Structure formats: C-alpha cells, structure tokens
C-alpha cells in the first residue's frame, strides 16, 4: 500500500499558529481522502517555522469502483421522460434494467463509477485544502491571488510505494508540486530531494531541521535544565513560552547568559516578565535565594564561536530592557516612599478615565473605599483598614512599571505598598483584590483582600448596570461575567452569608449617586435584574459542579435567594437528596399530590390549605401520613432555622414511603365530601412541608 508525503514550505509561520495548522492540514486532507474512498492506515502532521508536513501511511492506491443505482421513470413513460433520464445517467436505452414493482414496470439505471487513481484524488484534495485552509489570518503576496499565512514557496506531494515514488502532478497558482524541500535557512539552505517520509525526516535532520515540535521542545527543555543544573540553578518552568520558542526555531541551540549585577535587585516577577515578554527568555533561578540570576535564550543555529556573538548580543538587548525596568522600579520606589507616597499616584488617576459615564479611576477608587468600609464587618475585616486598602489598591496603575508591563498590576502595588510602610495585609489586598481572574484562579481569603475584591467587583457590576452596559451574547467588553463569578466564588468559597441586595448592591448603588451620568430611576428593578444575572452565573458555576439547572431554579424560587452562599448550600443539599432513591421518588409523590390538589382547587374554586384532621382519616395509610408529616414538620422547621439543609431535606425525603403508601391505598376523590376535603387538606400539608425546603414544582422528573 502506498504512502503519501505532503509538505507546504513557506516563509515563517507565526509560532502560535503552527500546531493548529498541522492538525488542520491532517484533518482537511485525510477527510478529503476518505470521502473520496481512499482509506489509509495512519497519518501524522508536523510543523516547523517554515513548513507544514503530513505523512499518510497505508493508503489505497485507487478508490474502489462503485455502482450507483438510479431509479427512473416507468417503462411506458413518454419518450421525452425516458430520454431525459438517459441523458442524466449517460446511458442508452438497452443498458437500463426493467423491474417489476407494485407500481408497475420501472426503469433502473446501474451507473458504474470506476475507481480513481490515488494521485488524482490527492491532487484534488490537497488543492482544495490549500485554498480553503482555516488560517486565523492569511495574506496575498506578489501579484497572485492565492492566500496563505505567509508566502507559500513550494509543495511536496509524493506518493511512494515499494517500486518507487511518484510526484503527484498538480499546480496551485503556479506552484508545482515536486519532491524537493530545503533545509535550515542559514545552515543548509540548498534543495533536498526526498523519496518518502522517512527519507524526508532523516534528510531534514542532516540539514539542521528538527521536524517534530515536541522533539524540539524536549531538546530545549533538556538542554536548558541540564545547563542550569550544572550551574547549581533551576529553570523557571513556563510551558507556554517553551511551546512558543519551539515554534520559532528549526534547530534549537540553548544558550545561558548572566544577568548583570545591577539588575539582580529587581523583583523576580519583573525580571521574568520583562525577559519573557520582550525577549522570549527563560528565567534561571537560584533555588536558595529565590533570585533570578541568569537567562536562557534559544538560538536557531550553531555558530563557529559556539554562540558567543549571539549570547553577547542578547545580553546587550536584555541590559537595555532591564535598564528601563530598573529605571521604572527605582522611580516608582522613590515615589512610594516619599511623603506624598502612593496618594500622589491616586491623585494622578483623576486624569485617567475609567469609563466616560462612570468617571475617572480616582472616582472609582473613592467608591471602592466607601463600599469596602461598608462591606468590612460582613467579611470580618476592620473597616478603617479596608478603606485604606481600597484607597491604595489601584495606585500602582500610575506607576511607570505598570505602564510598561500592565500584567504586573496589583503585584507592583503590593511591592510599593510595602515599601511605603503599609501593613502587609493592606499590601496584599492591592494584589489580591483583582482575584479571582478566572474560574481556576484562587479566591482571596484574607478579610481585607476579600473586602476590597468584593468592593471592586460589586461597584463595577452595579455601575455598568446603572448605565445599561450589560453583556450581550458573546460580547462582554468589561468582563462583567467574570466579575459576577468572582463575587459568587469569593462569597461561597469563604462561606460568607450576606444579603446581596441589601448589604452589597444597595450600598453600591447609593455610592454611585455621586456620578451625574448615572440614572437613579428604577433602582429596585435594576438591582433585581442584576441579581438575576448573578443567578445565571451561579447556574454556570454550579453546573460545573454537577448540580442541575432545575435544582438551582427550585432553590432560587425560595425567599432569601440573594444570599448566594445559602442558595448554594440549599442547592447542594437538594441535589444530594435527589440522588437518593427516596429523594427521587419523593418528587413523584410531591408532584402527584400537587397536581391533584391544583386540579381540585381549580375545579372547586377554593384553596385547600389547612384543616386536615386525623379524626377524619379512614385508612391506616392516611393516619401514617398524618404522623409522618408531624414528624417531618418537627424536624424540618428547626433544621431550616439553623440553615441545616441536609437535615431538612433528609426529613423531607423520609416522607417518600408514607406518601407512596397513601397514594397506593387511598382514593383522594372520595364520594364523601368531608373525607375528600380532609384528604385534599392533607395533600396541602405535603405541599407546604416540601415547599418550605425548595420549590419542588420546578424540579424535572
């Protein structure tokens, strides 16, 4: 069985696109082959900065021939109809088959589709793949109209079998497929002729090209860690960077260089960020001191001087970068330690717009400070400290370091707050108030950090709601969904029970009255809408924890639904209960009771709510249900008062047996009006007891 080798050789493909492109090439080509009937044994795709490669092994040499049966008109149909059918099928009258069917004699055409040679199919499929390739961004070049990620220079398309290899004849906008590739741009730029995948990979390696990205990454990591180890140091792990660097080189050569003494005093994060963002360097750390002392860069070649020139150049560039960083750091520290201190930074935020309707960053900070103070007692933080922490939490936005490296916001604030002599907890809040940044980011737990983090997010949500800038569909430019999820996680994961509306949203809304562009109308409706938004995010959050949508709805329908921690506890308990046999069946019983009751209430025009009396009970099952309800009520009320949902729910689930037995033995709609009314009132007790726990009418099942 033949093998297929494809290489698309181009100018440098962006590192971030390479892996995906290799997968796309494999998918597009192999899907096309299979659709055309060319099955194969295995396939694999690879990418380097200058090429995408696909190898397909054990491919059919031609597609199987097929016979397509096509049903035509009746044998006695008008001549014109038959002629039309013949034209469509490309056959003559004597080639048709007549078959007897219940509808009479019908003509059938058996159209033979002969198999096609693999080369024809491959050429078609590859051309289609090239022309429809899903690059995130593609371009034209020269005077052509073909689009590729960067100019495409040559194509290998080769089918090889034991008796030799054959170039698939094809031409895409003047680029003819061949059996030629090129080695490393500088170390082996000449043309290389190949006969198949193994030959191709081996020859490329001799031409200083490592085809496989994982092999390049592995080599880089091995050399880097060995080199650092030999110097008694560690490489700081960074898989994103490793993947990127592996996509920037065909022949990785790892070089380690020193960081000049001048810069060793910079915070490790600053060194790391500057080196990673600007230079794509790995950081090398002294495990004993935690300091970053060297850098590792990955060159794309060997040189006669063993990389000395390259390393010297990189050191020089790094020094220029770090001089900037050091300049920023020292300037910032001087300001932080000065008399005016971080307040000067906050002052200058008066000139920075947060949002044109929500004022400046300085105004935002003022609101956060008021709100943090109000929230403090609820999160067990000291109000004065919370206000102070909120006031400096965003000061670092004015610092030069954060201007240069926005991703260091918060962290720099922490360094500068410490330098300014502020308490550690206040400094920590500067960093942690942004958290959690995503679903997997850690939630702050220190009370001050919690207070400021909540203040920041709640102000943001209330503010954007007040100016009617809510997320729609996939658009959420101000990351409000993330903010809401942040609030939910901070409250729930810290076990903080607060009334979101009364204790957070209303105070936040009150603070917003200082903004002249913010509408004060319909506050209650607005906050209700915002609470619904929190509930939507909560559903997503709980769904990820395996709690069903309808269960959450059943709990949201209960009073106190703006205490998210309580809501989550309730939903968790209900979810657990419903997983039990009793729980699941209780729902059936409850629904049955509720249906009978609703129908009777509608028919009779009255509400059956109380008055059930055991003295009118006629069967043991009825009496047993009375006593089970008495038991359940006695247990549920105190459990609910103590917010012990698990106990309340298990008491409720215990009703399952008596309810089931009742429905099996008892006919509710008795001819005796008194008995009937009593039974309906009994059903009403089921509804009342169960509904005190959650709105079970909303539970599916």
């Amino acid at each position, binding site marked *: 069985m033949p093998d297929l080798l494809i290489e698309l050789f181009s100018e440098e493909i962006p590192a971030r696109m390479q892996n995906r492109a290799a997968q796309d090439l494999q998918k597009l080509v192999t899907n096309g082959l299979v659709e055309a009937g060319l099955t194969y044994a295995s396939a694999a795709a690879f990418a380097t900065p200058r090429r995408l490669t696909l190898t397909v092994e054990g491919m059919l040499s031609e597609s199987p021939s097929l016979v397509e049966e096509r049903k035509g008109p009746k044998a006695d149909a008008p001549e014109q109809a038959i002629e039309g059918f013949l034209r469509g099928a490309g056959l003559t009258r004597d080639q048709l088959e007549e078959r007897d069917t219940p509808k009479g004699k019908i003509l059938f055409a058996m159209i033979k589709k002969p198999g096609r040679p693999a080369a024809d199919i491959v050429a078609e499929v590859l051309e289609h793949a090239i022309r429809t390739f899903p690059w995130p961004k593609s*371009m034209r070049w020269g005077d052509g109209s073909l689009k590729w990620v960067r100019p495409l220079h040559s194509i290998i398309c080769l089918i090889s079998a034991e008796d030799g290899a054959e170039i698939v004849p094809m031409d895409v906008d003047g680029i003819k497929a061949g059996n030629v590739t090129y080695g490393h741009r500088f170390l082996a730029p000449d043309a290389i002729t190949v006969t198949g995948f193994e030959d191709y990979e081996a020859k490329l390696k001799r031409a200083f090209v490592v085809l496989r990205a994982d092999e390049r990454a592995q080599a880089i990591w091995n050399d880097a860690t060995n080199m650092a180890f030999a110097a008694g140091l560690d490489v700081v792990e960074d898989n994103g960077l490793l993947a990127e660097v592996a996509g920037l080189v065909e022949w990785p050569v790892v070089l380690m260089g020193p960081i000049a003494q001048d810069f060793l005093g910079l915070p490790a994060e600053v060194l790391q960020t500057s080196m990673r963002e600007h230079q794509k360097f790995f950081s090398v750390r002294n495990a004993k001191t935690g300091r970053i002392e060297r850098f590792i860069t990955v060159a794309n070649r060997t040189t006669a001087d063993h990389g000395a020139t390259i390393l010297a150049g990189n050191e020089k560039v790094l020094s220029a970068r770090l001089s900037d960083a050091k300049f920023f750091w020292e300037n910032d520290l001087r300001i932080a330690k000065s008399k005016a201190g971080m307040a000067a930074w906050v002052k200058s935020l008066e000139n920075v717009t947060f949002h044109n309707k929500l004022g400046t960053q300085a105004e935002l900070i003022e609101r956060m400070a008021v709100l943090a103070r109000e929230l403090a007692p609820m999160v067990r933080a000291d109000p004065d400290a919370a206000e102070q922490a909120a006031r400096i939490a965003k000061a670092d936005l004015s610092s030069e370091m954060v201007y240069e490296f926005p991703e260091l916001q918060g962290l720099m604030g922490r360094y500068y707050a410490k330098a300014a002599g502020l308490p550690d907890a206040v400094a920590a809040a500067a960093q942690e108030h942004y958290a959690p940044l995503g679903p997997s980011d850690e939630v702050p737990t220190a009370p001050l950090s919690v207070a400021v983090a909540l203040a920041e997010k709640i102000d943001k949500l209330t503010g954007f709601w007040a100016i009617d800038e809510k997320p729609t569909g996939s658009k959420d430019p101000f990351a409000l969904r993330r903010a809401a999820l942040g609030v939910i996680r901070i409250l729930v994961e810290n076990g903080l029970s607060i009334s979101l509306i009364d204790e957070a949203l209303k105070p936040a809304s009150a603070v917003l009255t200082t903004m002249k562009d913010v509408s004060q109308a319909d506050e209650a409706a607005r906050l209700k809408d915002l609470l619904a938004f929190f509930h939507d995010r909560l559903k997503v959050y709980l769904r990820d924890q395996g709690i069903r949508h309808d269960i959450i709805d059943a709990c949201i329908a209960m009073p106190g639904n703006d205490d998210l921690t309580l809501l989550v506890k309730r939903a968790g308990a209900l979810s657990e209960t419903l997983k039990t046999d009793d729980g699941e069946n209780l729902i059936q019983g409850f629904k049955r009771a509720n249906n009978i009751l609703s129908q009777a209430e509608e028919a009779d025009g009255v509400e059956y709510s109380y008055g059930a009396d055991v003295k009118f009970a006629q069967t043991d099952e009825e009496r047993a249900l009375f006593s089970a309800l008495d038991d359940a009520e006695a247990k549920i009320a105190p459990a609910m008062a103590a917010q012990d949902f698990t106990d309340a729910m298990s008491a409720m689930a215990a009703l399952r047996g008596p309810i089931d037995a009742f429905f099996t033995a008892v006919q509710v709609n008795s001819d005796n009006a008194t008995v009937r009314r009593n039974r309906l009132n009994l059903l009403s007790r089921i509804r009342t007891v169960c509904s005190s726990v959650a709105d079970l009418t909303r539970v599916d099942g």
Partner: protein
Amino acid sequence: MSKSPEKPRSFQSIILALQNYWAAQGCAVLQPYDMEVGAGTFHPATTLRSLGTQPWAAAYVQPSRRPTDGRYGENPNRLQHYYQYQVLIKPSPPNLQDLYLGSLEAIGINMDLHDIRFVEDDWESPTLGAWGLGWEVWCDGMEVSQFTYFQQVGGHDCHPVSGELTYGLERLAMYVLGVDHVMDMPFNDPGSPIELTYADVFKQTEEEYARWNFDTANTDVLLRQFEEAEAHCQAILDQPAVDPKTGKRIIMAHPAYDQCIKASHMFNLLDARGVISVTERQAYIGRVRALAKMCADAFVQTRAGGWSEDAA
C-alpha cells in the same frame, strides 16, 4: 553568504551601504519627503505608490518625528527625531527575504555568527487605514527591522501586494557599531578631520524639540492648523478632475495627501502636549484616516495609481 564586507565605522557609512545595496537591487533611491512625518511609511512613495497596479521599487531614508518619544537626548535609545530606512517593492518579489538578509550582510552583519529570526508581527496603521502581515526581524534578540506584506492601504486592497521593509537606523547602527548610547555614536568617520558624533549633530535639537513638544507648542495654533489641513485636503479633492486652465485631467492626489500628512503631524504634536483625552484620541485618528482614504481614492484615479484612458 560568508564574504563579509568591510565593517562600517559610522552611522552614515551604514546608511550609505544600504543606499548602495538597494540601488544595486534595482530600487530607485529616493530622497526623504520634505515634510514632517511619523514614519517612513507616510512618504507618498510608500503610501500612495503601494496602491494601484503600477510596478514600483523605491528605497529612501526618511527622517521621522515622534514628539512623545522625546527625552531631551538623555535616553540611550529614545529620540523624538530619528531616521528610518524604507524599501518598498511592488509586486513583492519571491526572494524578498533573501534580498533583505543580503542588506544585513551589506552593513556588516556576518550571517555565520548571528541569529536572525522572523518573529510574527502584524502591522496596522489606524491613521492610514492600512494593514499588512509580516514579522519583526530579530538579530540576536534585537528587533532590527519590520517586514510587511501590505494587504490594504487607505481602505483599498493592495493588488498587487507590496513588500515593505523598515529599518530603525539608529538602533541598527548602534548594534552594528557596538555603541550603547545613541549620542555616542560616530556620525561621520571617526578618523575624519572634524569628527562628529550623533550628539554633535542632534543633542541640542533633541533638547529644543523636547521642550517645545511637551511644554511650549501652542495648542490653539496646532488645533487650528489641524483643522485647516483637514479642510484644505477636502477642498483640494473637491476640485474637478479636469484642470480648466490646461484642459488636462489633473487629479491633485499628492497635494491633498500633503495636507493629510500635516494633519497627522499636528495630531502627534497635540498628543505630546497631553491635550487629547483617550476618547478624543480615537476621534482624531478617525479624522486623519478619513483624509488618507480620500487621498487613496483620488490616487487610484491617476495614472500612477493605475488609471488609464482606455480602461476609463
């Protein structure tokens, strides 16, 4: 690629080497445009000539001004006035990368010892309504050039596509010459009877312009000039295509584009004076872009822009 030419000794010898190299590759070596621009791309030899179907190959030095980058001549790398070297070839030749690498050799970068990389960097100029795909070129970790295949300019798709190379000359020269502070760089040959460093030529002007750009430029005047240039650009393009005096078809795309350049520079100066807020910024950029688009629309109606009597 191993024969290494004589090592350059001065800033100007690097510029001359680039001029000679690109002349030898068949480019018309043009002179800088005689107006204040933010980058070599603004030269009409790039902006306008990248439009339309006429083939083009030009190389030139362009003094460029970025008022906000002024540091009174004290920062080792930052200047409010600096030089770019610009090459534009349309259609982009298939060996443009090799031609580019040849230019690095021509200025004394030994390809056998250095690590040259093409790192993704897509280019976009919101003021020109232009974008392209390409790379920043790294030499031993330092960005030495910008390499772009123009896809769109002034809102027009580029057909054919131009290849554009931009070298930041000071930075490149500092690297090649091994100088750490731009002001220390020899401008002419260090053996000259009158030796001149970059500081001798530009230290004083950097101070003067930094003071003017940041603190002194009269913002009312700048604003007025911005608005005048904007109105003027529009007025020029509102003229009929046929000149009533000569009876010839003369669309004044270039004079109109001069006004667009002027408006762009006024905007840069206003920005440096810190009188443009974040929200206003976008609006100003949009106004300059509207001018650039009008000029591009006009240029493609001219002969150099591919218009012909027969086709019309």
